[in-house]
């Protein structure tokens, strides 16, 4: 093991690294938002009393869950443009693919959360005069989301990890920046170890935060 470890150069390159981090953050937040929105839509579809809607929901989940994120990203970036005639930016391609992918998982999580709310809650809201959206917004969803904090946080962490796959189409998130840096400085060990450490630390912190949140929510009943 004759290799000398030297992390100092990372500090010099911090501007560059920071841009990569921003890339990861930006993509993560976009996909989390879009993924949850998709999850809500398709969870409602899967719970609908209208059979065709249920079928659409199930198809969405099965299809987008069983295809790797990388394949979806490639499809959005290389294949879709030919059909639509427009070449999306790497960000849009990656965001679309990852949102659709994560949305499939989130659909199932939100569905189980909503299903766990007893009928009486729906009825009480309905009896007061709330329509479907009112019932969901003020009574059902606030409780459903509280009930699924653990799997929801897990999925959010998965989304953050999946953004690294966007590096394959040269989207400037942290792994892509690391790769460029490593090739430039001939220091793969430090760069990739640093990226690994970043995710380990960031996700462990996120996991702690989620545990705290869960404990606080339990007090409200």
């Amino acid at each position, binding site marked *: 093991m004759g290799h000398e470890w030297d992390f100092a150069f990372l500090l010099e390159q911090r501007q560059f690294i920071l841009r990569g981090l921003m890339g990861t953050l930006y993509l993560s937040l976009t996909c989390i938002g879009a993924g949850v929105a998709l999850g809500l839509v398709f969870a409602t579809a899967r719970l609908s009393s209208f059979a065709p809607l249920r079928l659409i929901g199930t198809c969405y989940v099965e299809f987008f869950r069983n295809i790797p994120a990388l394949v979806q990203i490639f499809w959005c970036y290389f294949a879709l443009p030919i059909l639509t005639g427009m070449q999306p930016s790497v960000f849009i391609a990656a965001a679309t693919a990852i949102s659709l992918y994560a949305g499939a998982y989130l659909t199932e999580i939100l569905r189980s959360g909503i299903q766990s709310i007893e009928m*009486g*809650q729906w*009825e*009480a*809201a*309905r*009896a*007061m*005069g*709330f*329509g479907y959206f*009112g019932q969901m917004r*003020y*009574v059902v969803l*606030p*409780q459903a989301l*509280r009930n699924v904090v653990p799997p929801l946080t897990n999925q959010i962490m998965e989304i953050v990890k999946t953004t690294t796959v966007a590096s394959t189409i040269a989207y400037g998130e942290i792994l892509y920046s690391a790769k460029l840096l490593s090739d430039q400085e001939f220091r793969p060990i430090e760069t990739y170890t640093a990226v690994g450490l970043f995710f380990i630390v960031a996700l462990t912190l996120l996991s702690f935060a989620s545990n705290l949140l869960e404990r606080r929510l339990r007090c*409200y*009943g």
Partner: protein
Amino acid sequence: MDEVLRVENLHKHFGALHVLRGIDLAVRKSETIVIIGASGSGKSTLLRCLNFLEMPNEGRITMEGKLVGRETRKPGVMSYSTRELNALRARVGMVFQQFNLFPHMTVEGNVMIGPMKLRGMSEAAARKLAEENLQRVGILEKAKEYPARLSGGQQQRVAIARALAMEPSMMLFDEATSALDPELVGEVLLSMRRLSDEGMTMLVVTHELGFAYNVADRVIFIENGQVHEEGTPQEVLLNPKQERTREFLRSHTLFRLPEAAS
């Protein structure tokens, strides 16, 4: 016209089960009507049809002089619009056996949410309204607590306040005390009695025959999805004309007739 509710020939099926077989009912303003009957007789279903938590299959419901829904080509079968039903439900309050308070809101929040989001009240106005109604059921001191910390009786009284805050023209009570421990039943019945005395139009499904005798203006005995007997509490509870009514009352051995009729 001071008739708040008129029900004509109400039918309700659950699949092959014909639960309501032609109910006729008229409720005048400030009347308190108690509905009694065996389990499965259809009394809860009747109540739930009145605020359309269950959709009637056939029959006309007229609320405050206005027919609800529109006639279809089939005689007696109505079609209803969601908007109309939501508006109706805001004018009819319901209290459930399982209370169904919203656990993620405080007591106050539970009472305020309807007025704020459905009647467009400001938060300050809604809070004042909530305080008034919580005071009315005697539970104002718990306003900032979460429902989980309250006893069953207290929760049910909050549920009553929540329904009252919508300022309904009629209140429906679906076995409001059946899920309560016996020692907590009294406080809820007391609140209900006070409401009745204040002049609220109430339809109460209950097993509490003492309440029926002392508070009801009219008692209706439902058997097999139909109105089997109807009249004042004295008529139905003390001198029932129908055999099945007598049978039903006999099985409620806790109900003791007042010794000296005054």
